[in-house]
């Protein structure tokens, strides 16, 4: 028996979200320790002491570079990933792996992001992608130097895979711009112009958010039009 949207939302509020928040917090905390663990283990087992001055210098340089990502990434994919999927960013590779998997799975099942069904589809998709992705990475790590040999013997393969990021982003952009071609064209044009004029990443992101969300809200408020091709 299928439930109404309201009943589904109530079911998730009652039984699903409390559990997801609990698991999310526990595993994010556990992974904080797991990330620091190798440094501690190498220090203890090999009898090495961390040079704190050098480490703080490195962290300072890295923080300067990563602050915009720290501020934006934890929430910018939430709309598609949903609550559980957002927590599962703990496994990394969000933009190139987790997000396409969540969006394609929602599309294949014919469910919308932001709905109870969209939340469940994104959860299953992100969890599956973590396990499959990890198995492929493990195989690649074990293959190790064999992979290096392959890349050195066939430079065409290595050169082709150097293009993988623009190809991933192109395919993902196609998926979202098909839902709203007007905003897809406008925002890509703005993005290209901002890169052309040499704006740094975080400024581009800010400008594009202000323009994109500002225009979308204004058009919707004034004419009640979302310009969505597929709602």
């Amino acid at each position, binding site marked *: 028996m299928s439930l109404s949207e309201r009943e589904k939302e109530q079911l998730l509020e009652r039984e699903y979200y409390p559990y997801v928040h609990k698991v999310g917090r526990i595993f994010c905390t556990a992974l904080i320790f797991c990330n620091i663990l190798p440094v501690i283990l190498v220090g203890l087992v090999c009898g090495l002491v961390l040079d704190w001055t050098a480490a703080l210098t*490195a962290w300072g340089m890295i923080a300067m570079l990563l602050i915009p990502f720290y501020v934006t990434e934890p929430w910018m994919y939430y709309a598609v990933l949903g609550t559980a999927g957002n927590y599962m960013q703990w496994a990394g590779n969000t933009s190139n792996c987790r997000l396409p998997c969540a969006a394609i799975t929602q599309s294949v099942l014919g469910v919308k992001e932001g709905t109870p069904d969209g939340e469940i589809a994104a959860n299953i998709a992100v969890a599956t992608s973590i396990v499959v992705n990890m198995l492929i990475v493990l195989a690649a790590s074990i293959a190790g130097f064999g992979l290096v040999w392959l890349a050195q013997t066939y430079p065409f393969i290595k050169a082709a895979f150097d293009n993988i990021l623009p190809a991933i982003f192109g395919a993902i952009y*196609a998926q979202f711009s098909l839902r709203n071609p007007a905003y897809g064209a406008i925002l890509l044009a703005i993005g290209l112009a901002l890169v052309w004029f040499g704006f740094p990443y975080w400024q581009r992101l800010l400008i594009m958010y202000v323009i994109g969300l500002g225009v979308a809200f204004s058009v919707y408020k004034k004419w009640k039009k979302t310009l*969505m091709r597929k709602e």
Partner: protein
Amino acid sequence: MGWEEIANGPIIWLSGFILGGVASLGAFLMYRKAREAALKMGWSEKQIREAVKASAITVIGPSLGIAVGMVALIIVLTPGIAWLRESAGIGSIMYELITATFGAAAVGKKLGPGLTPSDFMVVLAAMSVPCVVWLFGIMAATPGAKSLRAKMMKKDPKIWGLLAIVMMLVAFGNFWSDHLIKGGPSLLAGVISFVIATILFEVADMLKKPRLKEYVITVAILVAIFLAQWIWGVIGG
């Protein structure tokens, strides 16, 4: 013991398995809860299997890209470090190489044979610790994002769909522009992938076969990267 032996030694491999294992266990618990809720919401077992299959197929293309990108990490920092950082670290090869380079720079060295085991400790700390901030960010942002969504859905459900699409277009328009503006095979791969994906998504909709969409990302990526490289070679790039 040299730094390479530590970097490709049992401690690092074991740490990678712990990191990956904990991330996978968390993912399994989330999946189990989603499955339980899905069945109560009226999903069939077939729909759940379809969701798993769609994601497993979609992730192949990006994962192959990561595997090949790992070559650089393996050459510079050994397979052990590649496994540790790609199992469930931040995952971006670019991020990992930048943080490792900053770690080496902080001890006045370059990545490579010239490092000492103590230098390697700094490199390892530089790669491992900054992603902790991300995890704090995720814990802080997720509950707030959910209540914001609930408020917006109550007010006008249409606005959430619009907001979701615009946010994704901003994020990926920003990433993609960076690569397109470089020109060369990067531009070609981006455009070819976009065109192939657009055509395949439309064909899947026209034929009313949403399952075809599972293959679109992987097919578009693989065709685009090789075709772009081939075209670039032919036109003399």
